[in-house]
């Protein structure tokens, strides 16, 4: 009995890793994010792709974090245009990685599954926001004070 129970618990953990670092799709996204962060042209293409896709992504799973998601996109745009560079490389990679993950239709829970498809995306976004909140807040303050 104990063995079976143990097995069940282990399997559950593997299927739904709560720690985003254990999510393989996300670690791949972070790897790709590094090359995007160094290449403004690739970053521009990514932002444009994200802009086109944004209207087809449901807002409900992201709840209040939707505002931060939009701030990330504007930050990436301001970055590739060279308007705003006041951001640490690690944070930029994390932000780009989160956006790549949200755009990826075949992540941990595939995006076409109704009701559930964007739950994992919301978890990843919450993780990225938690890590980069200060950076994002500094950017939005810059937006309203210096333009």
């Amino acid at each position: 009995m104990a063995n079976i129970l143990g097995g069940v618990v282990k399997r559950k953990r593997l299927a739904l890793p709560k720690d985003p670092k254990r999510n393989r799709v996300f670690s791949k996204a972070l790897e790709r994010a590094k090359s995007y962060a160094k290449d403004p042209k690739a970053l521009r293409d990514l932002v444009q792709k994200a802009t086109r896709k944004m209207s087809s992504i449901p807002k409900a799973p992201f709840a209040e974090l939707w505002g931060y998601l939009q701030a990330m996109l504007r930050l990436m745009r301001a970055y590739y245009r060279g308007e705003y560079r006041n951001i640490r490389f690690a944070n930029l990679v994390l932000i780009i990685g989160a956006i790549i993950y949200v755009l990826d239709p075949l992540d941990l829970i595939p995006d076409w599954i109704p009701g559930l498809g964007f739950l994992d995306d919301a978890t990843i976004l919450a993780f990225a926001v938690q890590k980069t909140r200060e950076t994002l807040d500094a950017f939005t303050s810059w937006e309203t004070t210096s333009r």
Partner: protein
Amino acid sequence: MTKARGKSKPRAQKKPAPDKVELRVSQPKAALRSEAFARALANAKAHANNPERLRVLFEEAARKAAAVPKEPFLDSWPYLQAMLRLVRAYCRGEYRNVPQDELLWIITALNYFVDPFDLIPDEVPFLGFVDDATVMSFAVARTREALDDFMAWEISAF
């Protein structure tokens, strides 16, 4: 006999419950019933029709937003910033695609935010912005769609 007793007992117990519920519900909304909120709401219409006053409000609110603690606002903080950008875009005539009611709620929230002598004066440490955060989340709940539309326009138009 026993039946009648059984019926009368729960009636007597039920009475005190509603009072408690009412207290719990009304407390967090104290900011919305305050004089300062009524003032903010009354001033909003005058602001909406006067681009110059609206611009002054934006500048004051933007300056204040850069200086105040963000913690009380939690996740409505990016929406506060979105309100500021929307008001600026509205003043400049870049973006007018916002319903009048939503615009009034946004201006009301910013009016309240700018007011230093609202329900809990802003200089009170730790608590000074709790009431502002209540008003802000109330306004965000009412204008969420307009703000989301505005942000979608922001990333696609520029």
